[in-house]
């Protein structure tokens, strides 16, 4: 789509995307820019969205390299290291740079005679970069046992406990890395299903209009007026106990996208209705282009950015849904690890009072949702660079 005539940016209501509006060079640049460039320029001005984009990318990097970043096997239980508070890595030792953590020492409580394991400052265990740990498959393909951090020496129960351990002695930090992967992927998978439903149904609705449109719009209204959590709980609880982790994962994805598509369908329908009357679409029709070609070649590029914005706003909702369901014990089931499952451990106030670090899984949930929301806002503003 070429744009030969473009009014000066300053007169179009919003401020220009680049530099000084009086600058002729900038104006020429603006006039020649592709839509993608314009969108990027406008998006770039939204600083919060830019920062959010970086955060989201970082989160997905963590998801991709979850096992590499983990320090100990997230599934390995060890009763001896139950509820160990978070341990920092001590960077300096006797004046020199020598990162180390303390080993564990069994101490008998003088009153209860219970053996409790606490860090022992006398036993220093050096921390090494790219150390060997448990074996895993990087990207599910390459078998390796290299981890970003690892201990040199030390007993079976010793380890780096950046965020402490849970009741079963599993390292919370390692679990959180792996949980990030599962929680973010389920969001992506859910959005993909929603996107598919939303684009198809919203497209049909906007393209054909008439009773099909009415029917789909009523269906959306009906779906939106149902309280979702009880419904999800009902559907999720009905999944057979015998199902494998993967099957449950897929089923939960479908359940949470069952409602999520409505917003996407609305956006797609709205764009279809708006674009149907546009001159370039009419022109394409008159030129004898097939309907498929009009949709894919002419309409899709102009509403793709709106859909992307809607997707980035739908993703956090998906992540919250999965977290809520798993938190209730109705979503993913252990041994799967997700943020919701980590938070499930923090449900009990007595446990929480003794081990507040279990709440730390709330931090990535909040940060990623916030980042997606800002990103979505920025994308939505940038979606229509000619507006």
């Amino acid at each position, binding site marked *: 789509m070429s744009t030969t005539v473009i009014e000066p940016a300053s007169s179009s209501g919003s401020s220009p995307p680049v530099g000084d509006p009086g600058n002729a060079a900038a104006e020429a640049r603006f006039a020649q820019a592709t839509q993608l460039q314009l969108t990027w320029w406008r998006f770039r001005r939204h600083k919060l969205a830019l920062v959010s984009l970086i955060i989201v990318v970082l989160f997905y990097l963590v998801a991709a390299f979850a096992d590499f970043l983990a320090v100990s096997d997230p599934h390995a239980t060890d009763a001896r290291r139950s509820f160990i508070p978070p341990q920092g890595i001590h960077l300096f030792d006797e004046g020199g740079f020598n990162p180390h953590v303390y080993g564990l020492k069994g101490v008998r409580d003088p009153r209860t005679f219970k053996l409790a394991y606490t860090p022992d400052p006398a036993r220093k265990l050096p921390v090494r970069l790219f150390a060997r740990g448990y074996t895993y498959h990087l990207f599910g393909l390459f078998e390796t046992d290299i981890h970003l951090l690892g201990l040199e020496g030390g007993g079976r129960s010793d380890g780096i406990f950046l965020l402490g351990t849970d009741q079963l002695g599993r390292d919370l930090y390692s679990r959180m890395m792996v949980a990030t992967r599962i929680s973010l992927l389920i969001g992506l998978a859910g959005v993909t299903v929603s996107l598919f439903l939303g684009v198809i149904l919203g497209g049909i609705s906007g393209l054909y209009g008439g009773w099909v449109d009415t029917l789909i719009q009523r269906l959306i209204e*009906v779906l939106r007026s149902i309280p979702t*959590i009880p*419904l999800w709980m009902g559907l999720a609880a009905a999944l057979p106990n015998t199902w494998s982790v993967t099957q449950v994962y897929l089923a939960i994805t479908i359940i949470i996208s069952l409602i999520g598509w409505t917003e996407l369908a609305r956006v797609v329908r709205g764009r279809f209705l708006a674009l149907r009357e546009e001159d370039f679409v009419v022109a394409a029709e008159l030129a004898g282009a097939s309907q498929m070609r009009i949709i894919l070649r002419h309409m899709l590029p102009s509403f793709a950015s709106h859909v992307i914005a809607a997707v980035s706003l739908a993703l956090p909702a998906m992540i919250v849904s999965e977290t809520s369901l798993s938190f209730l014990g109705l979503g993913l089931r252990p041994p799967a690890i997700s943020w919701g499952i980590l938070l499930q451990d923090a449900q009990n106030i007595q446990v929480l009072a003794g081990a507040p670090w279990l709440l730390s899984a709330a931090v990535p949930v909040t940060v990623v949702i*916030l980042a997606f929301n800002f990103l979505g806002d920025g994308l939505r503003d940038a979606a229509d660079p000619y507006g």
Partner: protein
Amino acid sequence: MLVYLLRRIGLAVITCVFISILTFIIIRLPPGDFVDAYIASLAASGSTVSLEQADAMRRDYGLDQPLPMQYLRWVGRVLEGDFGVSMVWRRPVAEVIGDRLWLTMLVSLAALFLTWAIALPIGIYSAVRQYSIADYIFTTLGFIGLAVPNFLLALILMYVGFRYLGLNVGGLFSTEYVQASWSWGRAWDLAKHLPLPAAVLALAGTAQLIRIMRANLLDELRKPYVVTARAKGLSEARAILKYPVRAALNPFASSIAYLFPYLVSGSIIVSLVLGLPTVGPLLLQALVAQDMFLAGAIVLLLGIMTVIGTLISDLLLTWIDPRIRLGGR
């Protein structure tokens, strides 16, 4: 007006039918039927049921008929107020649910009113003093409110209350009133416990509404009639509150329709964390124990109450907004 009313009520009825079908699916989803589960629960407590008895029960509940017929029978029973028997509690479902449904609605409604009460003044302030420090603070708080799922907020609040204030912030009644029958004292006790869960629930909605109110009012404030009002020497408060705020309120009012289902949804999970005597914990127990009649009844009732609530809010909206009343839209 009448056409709109009929259309709106028709839609509500369709929604209810849809919810009932979904509920029926939920009831029927677990493997085996109700009688199987009932026999299993009887067997667990030592008594046995003969095959003839089981078949008689199946006939009695119409389980030998095709699914659509079963659905109609079930709906018929529900319309008569018979939700079946809870397997875990061995009592009629209606009895088990009791007060809890009303308390759920009460918490959700309280959250709704709180949302309004907070969002309205802050929204106006943020729009009138756009880009002031307070505006930025409210916007940031709003975003955080939007991003933190409310059950997480409830968890953090519980922890802070327990750890630093030595309070147990859960529940809707003090211990002496939990089992008591209704009295003024109990109602007052409830009123004292209500604000916290309502506030937890209200936060996300408030954040959204503040943003809507701020955006709407900003649009209105730029219109020439506001300039005219100011030029004619109206006091600032009057020039803002009398017309632009009222015009900005319309989309605000329509937000109840989507806010209410959301609040009811949220109340389920917040109730679980805060230990409120609403249907939330009951629903989870029922689902975990596969007590499907109880779970189904709760999902159905919650859905229908939400639809009714939305309907009422829409009717209120027609009263506020003449454009809808006159069929313009």
